[in-house]
């Protein structure tokens, strides 16, 4: 999943309003940040065992839970943050093909091979997250403008990615 992960961060904001949205946005992409680091270091493997396997993502969620809880003293918020990190794995099982554990099977519906279906699913996750997030914004004149801009920007980015996927099917992640 690409921009759909933002939907999880937006839903996390609704679940715990005291957490900064930027923190949730960084958290929702933790496995991809790890992949980016591995890529730059020249240690990336297409299986993504160190970044997207179940033990790896559970470890990231635990680290996020402890770090956020220790820094903020808000352990409920820490649990929400950990859930947002974990959501990355579950959403990737819908759109990708990801490792389970060392020696275990790869699982996933691989919607990336069907960009239209991928856009529909990711768009739905973005829309649900956006609707949940809208409630966290303070009362204001024309509240629908902000949420429309947010959803419009996210859906446009997702559309660009899906079109790019159609045109560059063989482009590796790293």
């Amino acid at each position: 999943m690409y921009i759909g992960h933002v939907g999880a961060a937006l839903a996390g904001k609704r679940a715990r309003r005291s957490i900064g949205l930027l923190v949730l946005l960084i958290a929702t992409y933790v496995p991809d940040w790890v992949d980016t680091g591995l890529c730059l270091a020249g240690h990336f493997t297409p299986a993504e065992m160190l970044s997207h396997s179940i033990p790896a993502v559970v470890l990231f969620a635990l680290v996020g839970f402890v770090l956020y809880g220790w820094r903020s003293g808000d352990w409920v918020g820490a649990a929400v943050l950990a859930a947002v990190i974990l959501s990355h794995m579950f959403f990737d099982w819908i759109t990708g093909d990801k490792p389970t554990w060392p020696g275990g099977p790869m699982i996933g519906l691989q919607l990336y091979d069907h960009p239209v279906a991928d856009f529909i699913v990711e768009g739905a996750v973005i829309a649900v997250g956006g609707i949940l997030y809208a409630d966290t914004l303070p009362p204001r004149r024309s509240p629908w403008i902000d949420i429309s801009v947010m959803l419009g920007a996210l859906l446009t980015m997702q559309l660009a990615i899906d079109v790019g996927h159609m045109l560059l099917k063989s482009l590796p992640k790293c």
Partner: protein
Amino acid sequence: MTTTEMLRVMSDAGTGLPTILANPILSGMRLIGELVVAILTPALIDRQARRSSRILK
């Protein structure tokens, strides 16, 4: 030229890109760029929405 034909021409033109972008440094930079855009876009819109509501008060 139909849309399908146009997409096919663009796809053919893009077949060389994966080879160029397979470099780990370029790929890493591309991944960072994608993540930063995906994160900063909603974060900035959120900030703007909260700021505009404060101005209204």
